C-alpha cells in the first residue's frame, strides 16, 4: 500500500512538472492554438454540411433522388363489369450532376409497370400500353453562364403550360393528368410533351416580378422525321403567388398532319386556397384527309389546404372537345375490331383528398364523374357516362 501511495504521488508530481511550461507559455502560442482549433471546427462544420454530397468522376457534386408511385383505379360502368386494377406502379429515378458552376446534367428515368384499361365500355377488359417499360424521360445538359441565360440540350420537357412543366407524379394531386395532356399509344392531341433538341431560356428580373422567355426546337417523339418548334413567355410576381404564361408549339403529327397549338396557363395562391388552370387550342391541317380540325380543352383545378400541406381537398373540372377522335379511339365495345376515329366531347368532374403525413409522402383518394355530351354521347345505344375511383400513393425521395 505504501508503495502504491508513493507511486501516485510521483505521477501527480510528474504531471505538475509537465504542465508548468504551458502556464508560462507566450500569449502568441495561445492565439495560434485558438486559430488552429477554429480552423478544425470550421472543417468539421463544412464536412457535416457536405454529408449529402457524393463526388464522382469529373463532377463537383451529384444529387440522386426520385419517387415511387402506386396507383389503383376502380371503374364503375353501368353496362359492364366494375373492375379494379392497380394500373400504375412506377419508379422515377433522377440524377443531377454539377460539373462546374455553369455546367450541369439532369436525367429522369422512369421504370413502370402500367396496366391501363383501354376499352372502358367493353364487358371484357383489355389493357393499354406495354406492361413493363423503362423510359429515359429527360436527359438534359444545361449551360447557364449567367443569371439571365441558359441553354439546354438533350431530351427535353417542352415548356408548354404549368401542368406539363410540373408533370412529375408527386407534384400532382392525383395520378391522372388533365385530359389535354394524356396520350393514347404515344399519340398526343395538343402538343408533344418532350422533344429531342435544344432550348434556350432568357430570364428578366424586375422589382415587380420575373419574366421568362423560352424557345425550343427538336425532333418530335411522335413523328421522328419532323421538327417541332415552340415558344413560351411566362410571368411570376415578386412574391411568387401568381404565375401565368402563354405557350405555342408547331410541328407535324403522324400522316403528314401539321399542327399549331396555343395554350394559356395560370397558377395562383391566395392564403390556403390555390388553383391552376389551362386552356389549349390546336389547329390541325391533315395532309391525307384535307380536313381542318380544332380540338379544344380547358381545365380548372382548385385546391384548399385544410391543414397547410398536410390535408388538402382538391377538385378539377376538365373539358375536352376532341375533334380528332384520338382520346377514345379504342373505346368501342368490341376491342377486336379495328380502332376507328371517335370524336367525342366530354367533361370530367373530380373531387379528391390528399393526405401528406410527411412532406415527402402523399396519399390520395379521388372520384371522377365522366360525362359525355354532344352527338357521340352514346355508343351502340348505351350511355357512355361512367365513374372512377382512384387511390394512390407517391413517395418522393
Amino acid at each position, binding site marked *: 500500500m505504501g508503495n502504491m501511495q508513493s507511486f501516485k504521488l510521483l505521477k501527480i508530481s510528474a504531471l505538475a512538472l509537465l504542465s508548468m511550461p504551458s502556464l508560462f507559455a507566450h500569449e502568441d502560442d495561445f492565439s495560434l492554438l485558438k486559430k488552429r482549433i477554429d480552423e478544425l471546427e470550421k472543417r468539421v462544420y463544412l464536412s457535416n454540411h457536405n454529408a449529402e454530397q457524393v463526388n464522382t468522376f469529373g463532377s463537383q457534386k451529384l444529387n440522386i433522388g426520385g419517387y415511387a408511385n402506386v396507383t389503383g383505379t376502380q371503374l364503375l360502368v353501368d353496362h359492364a363489369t366494375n373492375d379494379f386494377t392497380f394500373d400504375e406502379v412506377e419508379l422515377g429515378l433522377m440524377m443531377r450532376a454539377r460539373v462546374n458552376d455553369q455546367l*450541369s446534367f439532369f436525367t429522369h428515368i422512369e421504370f413502370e409497370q402500367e396496366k391501363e384499361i383501354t376499352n372502358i365500355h367493353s364487358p371484357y377488359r383489355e389493357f393499354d400500353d406495354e406492361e413493363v417499360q423503362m423510359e429515359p424521360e429527360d436527359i438534359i445538359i444545361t449551360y447557364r453562364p449567367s443569371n439571365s441565360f441558359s441553354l439546354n440540350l438533350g431530351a427535353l420537357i417542352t415548356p408548354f403550360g404549368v401542368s406539363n412543366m410540373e408533370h412529375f407524379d408527386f407534384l400532382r394531386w392525383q395520378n391522372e393528368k388533365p385530359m389535354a395532356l394524356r396520350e393514347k399509344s404515344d399519340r398526343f392531341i395538343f402538343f408533344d410533351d418532350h422533344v429531342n433538341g435544344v432550348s434556350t431560356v432568357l430570364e428578366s428580373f424586375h*422589382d415587380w416580378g420575373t419574366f421568362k422567355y423560352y424557345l425550343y426546337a427538336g425532333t418530335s417523339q411522335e413523328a421522328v422525321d419532323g421538327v417541332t418548334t415552340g415558344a413560351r413567355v411566362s410571368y411570376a410576381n415578386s412574391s411568387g403567388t401568381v404565375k401565368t404564361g402563354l405557350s405555342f408549339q408547331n410541328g407535324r403529327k403522324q400522316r403528314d398532319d401539321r399542327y399549331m397549338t396555343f395554350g394559356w396557363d395560370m397558377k395562383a395562391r391566395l392564403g390556403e386556397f390555390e388553383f391552376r388552370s389551362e386552356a389549349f387550342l390546336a389547329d390541325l391541317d391533315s395532309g391525307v384527309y384535307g380536313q381542318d380540325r380544332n380540338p379544344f380543352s380547358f381545365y380548372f383545378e382548385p385546391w384548399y389546404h385544410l391543414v397547410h400541406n398536410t390535408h388538402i381537398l382538391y377538385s378539377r373540372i376538365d373539358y375536352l372537345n376532341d375533334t380528332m377522335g384520338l382520346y377514345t379511339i379504342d373505346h368501342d365495345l368490341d376491342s377486336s375490331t379495328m380502332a376507328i376515329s371517335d370524336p367525342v366531347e366530354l367533361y370530367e368532374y373530380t373531387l379528391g*383528398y390528399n393526405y401528406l403525413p410527411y412532406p415527402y409522402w402523399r396519399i390520395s383518394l379521388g372520384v371522377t364523374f365522366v360525362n359525355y355530351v354532344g352527338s357521340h354521347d352514346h355508343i351502340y345505344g348505351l350511355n357512355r357516362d361512367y365513374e372512377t375511383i382512384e387511390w394512390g400513393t407517391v413517395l418522393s425521395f
Partner: protein
Amino acid sequence: MGNSIKFLIAIALIFSLQFSLFAQEKQAAEPKKVEWVVIVNASNSIESLDRNKLRRLLLKEVVFWENSLKVVPIVLEEEDSAFSAFVSDILNMKEGQYSRHWIEQKFTRGLTRPKSGNANSIIRLIGVLKGAISVIPKKIWDEAERVSVKSISLEEVQLKP
C-alpha cells in the same frame, strides 16, 4: 352520379369541416416577431440588398453574384425557433410551403434545398464560403464572434402582391 360518389363526397365534406376548424386553431399561434440581419462573407463587395433580390438569392432563382461567383444560400435549420418567422418574413411563405417548394424545385429544376444550420454555425460557414449569404436573428449576430463575416443592409422594399 352513383351512390358511391355521393358517399365519398359526403366524407370529403365532413373531413373539410373538421380540418378547417383544426387549421384555424393552428393559425392562431402566429410566429413571434424577429429582427433580422443579412450576412455575407467579408470578401463580398455587396453593401445592401432589397427584399426581392434577397428572396431570389435564398431560393436559388438568382445563382451568380455580379462578379460571377456562385451564390451559396444558407438558411436556419427547421428545428430553430426562428425558422417559422424566417420563412414567413423573408421568403413570404408558410412553413409547410417551404418543404413543398424544394420538392417542386427538385423535380422541375433538379435543385436541392440550401444548406442549413443554427445561427452560430451559419456565421462560421459564411466566414469560409466566399459566395455564401444568410439571414439570421440580429440578437444572435450581436452576441456572436465574427470572423470574415459582415452584415449588409436590407432595403425595405415591400414584396409586391
